[in-house]
């Protein structure tokens, strides 16, 4: 009897002390916390937790946001303090078009900037080597420092977080750095993330972003991480991506497991380079797909956050508390959207977004309901942003931190997802790590199997998709949106401007810089990224730079598993 009493007493002391610590952290982040009331006039607290002395598992498994197991969120205040960043991807043909649109967005209160390049840029090919029909249809054509400068005209690049969809070897970041230099903005003021830096995920699933051979990409990536830590200390060079694998068919648990296995691989590679886990791990960020499987997605994020916090401490011995923060961006899943009855997609996106928000995301992209017809057009893109604002202001999703925490269902599911995710990580460890597991096709086969399994469920009707295999509506009169393709004359102008750029630059200087890059690629002891920035400054285009690296380090041919 005494024994039990003591334990309860100890527990009480711990729980209350932790709550106080959380409160201090919360108040430091939320300077003037106004009282929040619901429509019935009831006061809504920022966080709810079990009374001390009850629920003994709480402290080990959940704890308070911003510390401990991190299950409930990575910051003490989460969305109650600062809501997530609305990071809408916009793809616009020419740098001028992008600049016009982004200025409008910033004027209307946007706080972050994302650049999505044209598919040709993703492939590492300049505009003068691509079928013109494909230019600027999905993103902005950015081949040179000049293009980047136009994209960012009148934008205070030292004061805004910049997201670059910039696959390895980070040529857009190099352009950004050269633009900053020319404007006298010092590199330590450049903040943001290389959003498409996870070359393993591109090898496995999103092949469009895959530019260099697996071993070549690995080497260049480490060079960049090392060089950026020295020269651009506030830049996040790595965003580990779970989105591509889930879009390709991985289940949510599989996608989370594979993403964490990739993060482990990158961390081990960094460690092998002699980098300090306390420093590089706090720069790791993540990017996930969020599907309509609502509770599963919430549990996926909570479980992933808990596993990461533990991995950082136990596997990599990092003591920096910031390294334990599982920072992630989420994008609503395009795979769930249907062509049939397309307005239904607005409802789907809202539910997906809710799952991501209640799962504790840091930034969010909501899909336009027309993404199943085309890259999003302006009208549907507006609805997508409005969806986020509705969830934020009308639905009150920001009022409470981890509002689903403590639910019997959600906690059980979180535990179960955690076990699934850990099993995937173990499987990859047994394969010798993620790098080996993708080299052999193990991961690709697993994802392919899951995709086939899901499709089978849809084909047999076991998984109902409204409007597709159930509740079909022949008379669905929704007009499909008109598509706005770039004007061929404007695209021609862009191609001409590249030709003019190539003519006016100092060709000897370009050639010399590319030669230095080539030599750096051939020598294991040189850092390719420094040479890449130099070549960019000298006037080399992204296509030329990637061509040199492809020559020396191998072309990015994904392993196609059938």
């Amino acid at each position, binding site marked *: 009897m005494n024994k039990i009493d003591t334990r309860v007493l100890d527990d009480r002391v711990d729980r209350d002390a932790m709550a106080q610590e959380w409160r201090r952290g919360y108040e430091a982040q939320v300077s003037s916390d106004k009282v929040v009331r619901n429509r019935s006039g009831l006061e809504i607290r920022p966080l709810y937790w079990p009374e001390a002395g009850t629920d003994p598992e709480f402290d080990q498994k959940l704890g308070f946001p911003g510390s401990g197991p991190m299950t409930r969120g990575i910051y003490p205040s989460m969305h109650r303090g600062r809501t997530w960043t609305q990071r809408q991807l916009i793809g616009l043909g020419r740098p001028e078009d992008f600049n016009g649109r982004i200025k409008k967005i910033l004027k209307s209160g946007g706080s972050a900037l994302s650049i999505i390049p044209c*598919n*040709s840029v*993703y*492939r590492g*090919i300049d505009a003068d080597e*691509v*079928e013109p*029909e*494909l230019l600027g*249809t*999905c993103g902005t054509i950015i081949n040179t420092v000049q293009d980047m400068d136009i994209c960012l005209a009148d934008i205070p690049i030292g004061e805004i977080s910049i997201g670059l969809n910039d696959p390895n070897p980070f040529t857009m970041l190099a352009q950004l750095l050269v633009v900053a230099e020319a404007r006298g903005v010092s590199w330590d003021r450049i903040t943001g993330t290389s959003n498409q830096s996870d070359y393993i995920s591109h090898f496995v699933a*999103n*092949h*469009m*972003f*895959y530019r260099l051979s697996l071993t070549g990409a690995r080497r260049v990536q480490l060079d960049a991480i090392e060089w950026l830590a020295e020269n651009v200390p506030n830049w996040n060079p790595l965003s580990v991506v779970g989105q591509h694998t889930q*879009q*390709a*068919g991985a289940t949510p648990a599989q996608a989370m497991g594979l993403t964490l296995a990739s993060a482990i691989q990158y961390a081990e590679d960094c460690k092998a380079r002699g980098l300090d886990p306390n420093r590089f791990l706090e720069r790791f960020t993540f990017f996930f797909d969020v599907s309509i499987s609502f509770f599963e997605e919430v549990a996926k994020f909570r479980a992933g956050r808990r596993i990461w916090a533990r991995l950082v401490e136990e596997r990599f011995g990092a003591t920096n508390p910031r390294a334990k923060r599982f920072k992630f961006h989420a994008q609503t899943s395009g*795979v769930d*959207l*249907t*062509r*049939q009855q397309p307005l239904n997609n607005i409802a789907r996106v809202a539910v997906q977004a809710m799952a991501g928000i209640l799962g504790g995301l840091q930034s969010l992209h909501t899909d336009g309901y027309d*993404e*199943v*017809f*085309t*890259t999003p057009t302006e009208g549907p893109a507006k609805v997508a942003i409005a969806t986020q604002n509705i969830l934020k202001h009308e639905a009150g999703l920001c009022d409470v931190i981890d509002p689903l925490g403590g639910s019997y269902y959600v906690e059980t599911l979180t535990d179960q997802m955690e076990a699934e995710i850990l099993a995937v990580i173990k499987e990859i460890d047994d394969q010798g790590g993620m790098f080996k597991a993708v080299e052999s096709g193990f991961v690709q086969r697993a994802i*392919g199997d899951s*995709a*086939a399994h899901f*499709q089978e469920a849809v*084909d047999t009707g076991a998984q109902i*998709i409204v*409007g*597709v295999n159930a509740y079909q509506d022949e008379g669905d009169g929704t007009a*499909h*949106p*008109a*598509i706005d*393709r770039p004007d061929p004359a404007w695209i021609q102008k862009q191609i001409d401007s590249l030709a003019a750029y190539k003519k006016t630059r100092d060709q000897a200087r370009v050639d010399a810089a590319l030669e230095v890059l080539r030599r750096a690629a051939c020598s294991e002891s040189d850092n390719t990224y420094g040479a890449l920035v130099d070549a960019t400054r000298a006037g080399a285009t992204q296509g030329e730079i990637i061509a040199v690296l492809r020559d020396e380090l191998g072309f990015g*041919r*994904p392993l*196609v598993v*059938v």
Partner: protein
Amino acid sequence: MALTATIPARVLVTKIGLDGHDRGSRIVAAYLRDAGMEVIYTEPWQKIESVVALALQEDVDVIGISSLATDHLLVPKLMKALDGAGLGHIRVIVGGIVPDDEEAVLLKSGVSRVFHPGADRADIVDVVARLARDAGANRPDG
């Protein structure tokens, strides 16, 4: 002799242009395989000339082009190239994200059918089988 079993249709499933999303093409390849067809599968980013060379060497009846990020805009060029190579009998289908007005352009260029997300498995298999028969009947050399 009992060896005149049905000869499997031969189908090239591929992607042209710049995009690399291949979930759809893999699933369709599996559908056609499971329907008893022989599927020649490639990596993405095929050039138009490569598709022509592949179709010729493999003597396919049908080409399936998967497109999710505007690469279908190149399909009219492919249709011309196939004709130019004497492969006009080969039937071409496109699957993926194709806006309505551009679907019309593709059909006009000679594409037999455009499949959209959510297309029915049985429909895909039936259409490909029928198109393979059409192709066989329209070969220039019989």
